[in-house]
């Protein structure tokens, strides 16, 4: 008898349904089963944040969550945040302000930052530093990441104001 579990997920707006071992980690589901390779693996211990995704409105590190724990939930990865035809302001700002170098932390970093700006559209530098402390970058020293997030926040707020 199989001990596989019946999993249902909605990933970047698309319904997914499959059988998985109870021990299957969400990050492998995304990367290997669903070929969503934006989220990366950096530490397997929830420290680095390269695997950050959004699950039902919360930032989650996919390397330490079983896919079974995510069953029934909605997941957004970097691929669901913006693409070539609909770039998220953070994606534009990270390029504009040199907020990345090797790019390995970037998907998790932007996914987390998008969530942070939803929670707090006008963060201070200190709030950004605290809110991003779960995502490690080895290349940039964070200074330009902070700058990118501030620029995206300003851009998003201006767009919101213009729309109102």
């Amino acid at each position, binding site marked *: 008898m199989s001990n596989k579990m019946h999993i249902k997920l909605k990933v970047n707006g698309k319904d997914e349904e499959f059988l998985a071992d109870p021990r299957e980690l969400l990050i492998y589901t995304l990367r290997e089963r669903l070929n969503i390779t934006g989220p990366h693996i950096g*530490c397997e211990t929830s420290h680095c944040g390269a695997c950050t995704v959004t699950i039902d409105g919360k930032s989650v590190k996919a390397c330490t969550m079983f896919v079974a724990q995510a069953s029934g939930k909605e997941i957004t990865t970097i691929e669901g945040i913006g693409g070539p035809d609909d770039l998220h302001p953070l994606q534009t700002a990270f390029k504009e302000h040199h907020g990345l170098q090797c790019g390995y932390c970037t998907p998790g970093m932007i996914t987390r930052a998008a969530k942070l700006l939803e929670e707090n559209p006008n963060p201070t530098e200190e709030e950004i530093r605290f809110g991003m402390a779960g995502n*490690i970058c080895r290349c940039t020293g964070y200074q330009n990441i902070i700058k990118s997030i501030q620029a995206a926040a300003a851009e998003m707020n201006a767009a919101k104001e213009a729309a109102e």
Partner: protein
Amino acid sequence: MKDEVTREDRVANLKGLGCSRKRVEDARFTQGKGNYVDDIKLDGMLFGDFVRSPYAHARIKSIDTAAALEVPGVLAVLTAADLEPLGLHWMPTLAGDKQMVLADGKVLFQGQEVAFVVAEDRYAAADGIEAVEVDYEELPVIVNPFEALKSDVVLREDLVAEDGSIPPGAHGPRKHHNHIFTWEAGDKGPTDEVIANAEVVAEESMYYHRTHPCPLETCGCVASMDKVNGKLTLWGTFQAPHAIRTIVSLISGIEEHNIRVISPDIGGGFGNKVGAYPGYVCSVVASIVTGKPVKWIEDRMDNLMTTAFARDYHMTGQISATKEGKITGLKCHVTADHGGFDACADPTKFPAGFMNICTGSYDIPTAYLEVDGVYTNKAPGGVSYRCSFRVTEAVYFIERMIEVLAIKLNMDAAELRRINFIRKEQFPYTAALGWEYDSGDYHTAWDKALKAVDYDGLRAEQAQRVEDFKAGKTRKLMGIGLSFFTEIVGAGPVKNCDILGLGMFDSCEIRIHPTGSAIARLGTISQGQGHATTFAQILASEIGLPADSITIEEGDTDTAPYGLGTYGSRSTPVAGAATAMAGRKIRAKAQMIAAYLLEVHDNDVEFDVDRFVVKGAPEKFKTMKEIAFAAYNQAIPGIEPGLEAVSYYDPPNMTYPFGAYICVMDIDVDTGVPEIRRFYALDDCGTRINPMIIEGQVHGGLTEALAVALGQEIAYDDMGNVKTGTLMDFFLPTAWEVPNYETDFTVTPSPHHPIGAKGVGESPHVGGVPCFSNAVQDAFRPFGNTHTNMPHDHWRIWRTANELGLHD
């Protein structure tokens, strides 16, 4: 209305040298479309992983793989016995030693590779690893190099002759069975004499602790042997793909043309990805054995415990001076802990790297350096973590010795540096330990830095703080960290730099397309430095086509010209020079084509931004775009069709970037927490290609310096257990711990580099570590501190305060 295109517009359109061009790499990275090695998925691909030793030193009595082979999904288990018939159970290291691929009778460090389990996926491989039974017999463990040199315990029986004698190693005679080499530079006798007769001598011993480059992406590869065509393709996190191809060919016997090595996007390297690791060899063998592609990816613990530690230098120094502070001599001895195998990634003739740059930025007439390499039961490696070969160690040593001497002389450390700097007019300057510094203007940089931070004001504030502390008004001390560094990068001239016999030149090949765009391929490989952006800028200025019309490609050995890769800040000094030189070949041919088209003599046209113009008649010109098309559609007498060039550049000398860093720090003596109030970094990397990217490199290098100085270490207990095997224990700073940095620059072009550039990626790490450390030490100077060892984590800072009686 007339839209006149000015010369300035034409220059701006190129986005060439000096332009903060936005990076072309970023579109894919920001959208999650990077292509890193673990993103590679091939039909039928298997996954390999290691059984690793829990012991730091043990004999292997037996390995039983039977149960593992019964585990569902497990296809094969390789041990040294399986590799031995192929001659692959050991492999050469980059340092002239050899290293076990899989444990051959014993293990020498915790985490050492014992067996390789090949399975259908990672989970099955992990199950297989659990089922492999290894019977170990524990042996005495040595984790201290000084003990190793006294111990009867032989770590490397393979390096002792049958009669018990010690044959010489790759770098000369060995003094003891656990000794690897002695390497010397400078003059011992004269240095001893100068120091013995000096007016003032300062001495200090310091330990530059073991740490690890720890890029966010670990090492890994995918090996795919196509048995039909006899071709091996190897994707991997390789900082030197061509060198890996040659090594794989040499050890496997597969001819080099049948091996294609590809470095895809690399998630940071910092030196970790220079070496050749057992995982690469085992993946290749497993692919040959199974006939299927095999992937191997380290997890973080594998990475921190086994591949590529950095530093671990025990340094003792003497520095002599006149009473006025003029330095007369310097002596340095290093006991270097290399772990179980000597796998340091250094040019062959430099077993201690460029440690002999340890006279720093100072005009020191007499010096002597001696380095003893030693085996211990620790992981092999000894890579250059964000620095040229052992330059962080050298710069840390001299920048600490200067501070210690300043204390002895009761002198201001900034002034002591100033009166000893090599003067501008002394360049090119031959240092006492042999290097010829190409260029520098240290006084200008230092004065600019001191003025920028109001150095005198800071010292006055610090003196007041000490008074306030003594009066019980504050519990925070203030430290001012100074550092002035000279790097030696761009290895290197083939006459003295090679790795495994491969000269350390680099290369660039350019093809101009008929419609005036281009592709250039290089022997280097970006790991975040932005080569696709900056090399196109070098080329844009050289050949007059816009950077946006130039594709840069690296990392595929089937298409790129041979090069030695990216590390030691060598890409701009060596491959950047090759790029400029190849561009000049393009330009030379373009000049002939332009002259033909303009019906004048070759010498009657001259290059102007993006075109050739007839001298004295600027209205007569041909743009590079027009020339490119003509190269493909005109039959020009005496000129071959097409417009391509290749350059292999052997640099005449290293380049010597330098910089002045100042850190202002407040330290809470009761918690040991340092707070970085200000960090000013002035870098001189010669000609600046892309200021935005330079600044980004400086921020990143300083942050890695902060990590190393303030907490990051690979620590072992007495049993050889790694105590820092995850990111729980191994310190990587987050946004919360890192300050904002102020960057500044001067420009002293390299006189021998085609565009005057020197390299910058590693300078901030090299100069940053002593700057952060000096700030901590300086805070305690008024209370009698001369030196404490890094890393200055909260506990050690607290302990320093405690030992100085500041908690009484």
